[in-house]
């Protein structure tokens, strides 16, 4: 066994950086080894065509743990927000858009009943997501042990649910596992509102409105806070890359070193314990502990090798569902796009195309059979409305999460498929912004296959593995790995594939750091 005190963190995604910062803060010798030229992973700002920068994957910040921002002093390390309180505009082809914030819904043809129901729906979802948020800052309990820590944390979960009160507890247990379609149909009349809200449960996942687990995913999405507001949406100034730049700075100021352009080829073993990593170039770096920010399958199969694990856990890891269905469409525009019926003051909000639940379900249906949606759903931001650093003056960037674009597209994502899907997206966009095609100077489409290649995420999956109840909490990524520590001596996981899951939140990174420290 090596006597190295060094902790190597494989991958400088935001979770790897958070983990590095916390470990360095505790005086550990930490080295982050990142494959890409810049840190950040899927939370990164890149120039996608000369003069135009965009948040390549993640574009909205809503999950970042407030405790982490504070404890690591992200503002002192340069994190600023272009906006912290984006509203959502549900686009309607006839221009009768509807707008909602964390507290109210207005516009469109929304009924008085819906206006009254919306805040109630929102408060209840927030209350429920609070139960999750409490779980997110701690290691999930292991099941079936008689260990005091496990029993306590299981008891705390039960208590948190009990403390919701009788009616809410019942409602929580009723809806937590079910689908968005049913609960939205119960609460609202407006098709447009229901369609838009359903996306909270769909984005990043392999689900449609009628798929179970949608409510759980929506609760996950609402579990964060920005500026003290639960479920608020923020745009970091300079794009998502500024979040990870601030994290990198925090890690470095605490003494961590960061190496970029250094892909790790393998995790080195001495007996049953890690002893370092080997880079693709052949260079070896000693380490007593290796923490991986790469997804569980990349970490355990590609870098470690399944042979260093027992077969049961290997089977579980190989069965993790992690086939991405979200693509990213980034457009460089020569001017501000015009959406029918949308005032210039609203152009900078979060715009969604999901006109009704059936539309979303249809979009999803294709993906079940290895096809991309003919009429995709979209979550659009135009960050240049608030942030002039991203594009030449007067010009704009449109950043859109587009679904469903299945990783395992029948026939593969060849040029023809990419063009066909891009055309579908433009056709749909054109229904809302008729002149937009003429404004496009450059198009970047990132399918899950591109995301897998460029960000080294298996399946290009948003969460490094579906975030569903069977792959959540103490089952995430799989039983036996949920406490960040793997069965391999000195090897830990810290990425989105671990509890509590994906999104730019940092909780997995911080919890993993705590697990490393408590394992010493």
């Amino acid at each position: 066994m090596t006597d190295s005190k060094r902790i190597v963190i494989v991958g400088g995604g935001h979770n790897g950086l958070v983990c590095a910062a916390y470990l360095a803060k505790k005086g550990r010798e930490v080295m982050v080894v990142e494959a890409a030229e810049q840190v950040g992973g899927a939370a990164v700002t890149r120039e996608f065509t000369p003069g135009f920068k965009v948040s390549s994957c993640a574009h909205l910040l809503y999950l970042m743990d407030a405790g982490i921002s504070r404890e690591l002093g992200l503002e002192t390390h340069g994190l600023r927000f272009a906006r912290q309180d984006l509203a959502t505009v549900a686009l309607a082809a006839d221009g009768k858009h509807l707008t909602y914030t964390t507290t109210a819904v207005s516009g469109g043809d929304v009924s008085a009943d819906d206006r009254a129901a919306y805040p109630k729906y929102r408060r209840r979802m927030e209350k429920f997501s609070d139960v999750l948020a409490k779980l997110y800052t701690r290691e999930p309990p292991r099941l079936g042990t008689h260990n005091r820590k496990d029993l306590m944390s299981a008891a705390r979960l039960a208590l948190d649910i009990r403390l919701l009160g009788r009616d809410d507890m019942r409602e929580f247990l009723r809806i937590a596992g079910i689908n968005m379609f049913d609960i939205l149909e119960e609460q609202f009349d407006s098709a447009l509102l229901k369609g838009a809200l359903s996306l909270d449960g769909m984005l990043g996942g392999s689900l449609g409105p009628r798929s179970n687990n949608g409510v759980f995913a929506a609760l996950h999405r609402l579990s964060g806070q920005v500026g003290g507001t639960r479920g608020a949406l923020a745009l970091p100034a300079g794009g998502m890359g500024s979040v990870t730049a601030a994290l990198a700075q925090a890690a470095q100021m605490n003494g961590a070193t960061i190496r970029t352009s250094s892909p790790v080829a393998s995790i080195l073993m001495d007996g049953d314990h890690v002893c370092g990593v080997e880079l693709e170039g052949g260079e070896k770096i000693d380490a007593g502990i290796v923490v991986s920010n790469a997804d569980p399958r990349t970490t355990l199969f590609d870098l470690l090798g399944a042979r260093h694990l027992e077969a049961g856990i290997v089977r579980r890891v190989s069965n993790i569902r992690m086939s991405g269905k979200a693509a990213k469409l980034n457009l460089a525009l020569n001017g501000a796009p015009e959406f029918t019926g949308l005032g210039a003051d609203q152009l900078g909000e979060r715009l969604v195309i999901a006109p009704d639940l059936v539309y979303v379900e249809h979009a999803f249906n294709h993906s079940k059979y290895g096809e991309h949606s003919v009429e995709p759903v979209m979550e659009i931001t135009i960050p240049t409305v608030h942030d002039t650093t991203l594009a030449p003056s007067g010009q704009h960037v449109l950043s859109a999460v587009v679904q469903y674009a299945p990783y395992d597209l029948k026939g593969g994502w060849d040029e023809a498929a990419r063009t066909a899907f891009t055309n579908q997206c433009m056709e749909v966009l054109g229904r809302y912004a008729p002149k937009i095609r003429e404004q496009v100077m450059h198009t970047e489409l990132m399918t899950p296959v591109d995301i897998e290649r460029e960000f080294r995420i298996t399946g290009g999956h948003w969460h490094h593995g579906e975030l569903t109840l069977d792959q959540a909490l103490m089952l995430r990524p799989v039983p036996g790995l949920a406490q960040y520590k793997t069965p391999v001596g000195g090897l830990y996981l810290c990425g989105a594939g671990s509890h509590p899951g994906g999104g730019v939140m940092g909780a997995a990174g911080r919890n993993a750091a705590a697990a490393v420290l408590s394992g010493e």
Partner: protein
Amino acid sequence: MRSRGHFRKNVYPSPFHSRLEPLNKLKEWGRWHDYLSADTYICDSKEYFAVRNTCAVFDLTPMEKTRVTGPDAFAYLDRLLTRSVEKVKPGRVGYCVWCDDNGRLLDDGTLFHLHEGDYRLCSLHPQLDWMLTSAIGFDVDIRVETHEVAALAFQGPTSCAVLRKMGLDDIENLKPFGIKHYAFAGTELMVSRTGYSGDLGYELWIDPSAAEDLWDRLFEAGELHGIMPFGGNALDLVRIEAGLLLCGKDFLPADGTVRPERTRSPFELGLDWLVDLSKPCFNGRQALLEEKKNGSRYNFVKLDIDGNKPANDSFIMLQNKTTVGHVTSAMWSPSAKANIAFASLEAPYGQVGEEFLAEIYYQRELKWTRVLAPCRVIDHNFFEPPRRRMTPAPDF
């Protein structure tokens, strides 16, 4: 045989069937996976005594045989099995067990290292699912060859003499757990000095097309050496005397067992010698390390029981009648002249020399009687003649 429609036939005659059939005086067949297999050919005790006093043949063809080849064959098996596979050199056979991630036995078997990097794993039950699961991440080829290899267990004191008479050169110098290959009827006959009887004995492996030839030559050579077939019942008796476990009787395969307390680890079956915890990774290692640290739940023991009433299914009790375990296999051993049994006892009971009571029920002329027979834990096999290990193997 593994063709479409295989399921319609449901059960198959073994390649030796034409020879077994006339010898099966009772005309009763059971099944062992895909094959007809006889528990008794004529009389269990007659067959038993043939194994012990002359020689007898058991049709081993239904045994699950899985071939493991490819660049990672060794590494794969070393991760699959709890023992060190390094120690099973080419041309050698090793007894082995394998576990799930909880360190509980899935099955036991014999690993044949046929040629460098070319292995055959034999087991009572099909293991393909677990073997394929275990293959993720290894460059190995795993192929079930149960139906491509006809096999006989040929056991008993005169077995070596018969094989010599058959013309198998130098067979007497084959060491226990060794393998030899012979040209035979235009194909290859593989002979291993292995078996389930605890006595001198061999196993013969051949292409099914030459199976009948092999049988005929063997019976011709063995005629004056008391050769006869033996069935599953006699086999069960000799293996108990030899101290060998039977999956399904002495332990349950963990993947088919609902209640976790009914499964057993190798330590709980007295198989510590088959577990090499110094290997960096094998299925079950983490759990077995924990068990080593925290202690096992059960001890597996051999019992010498007073009296002559077989202790089948008996409870094992302390002197104060508290039940601490039960018998898994039992018999009156004619060879050892002892009443013997295997039992699973709650830890820490089961130290060598410890005395218990076996609660035995038996019936005589329709009248049931219960005895509490004193018994004690012993550490040797009930039957272990020196010729089992002697090389050159003696003639009888």
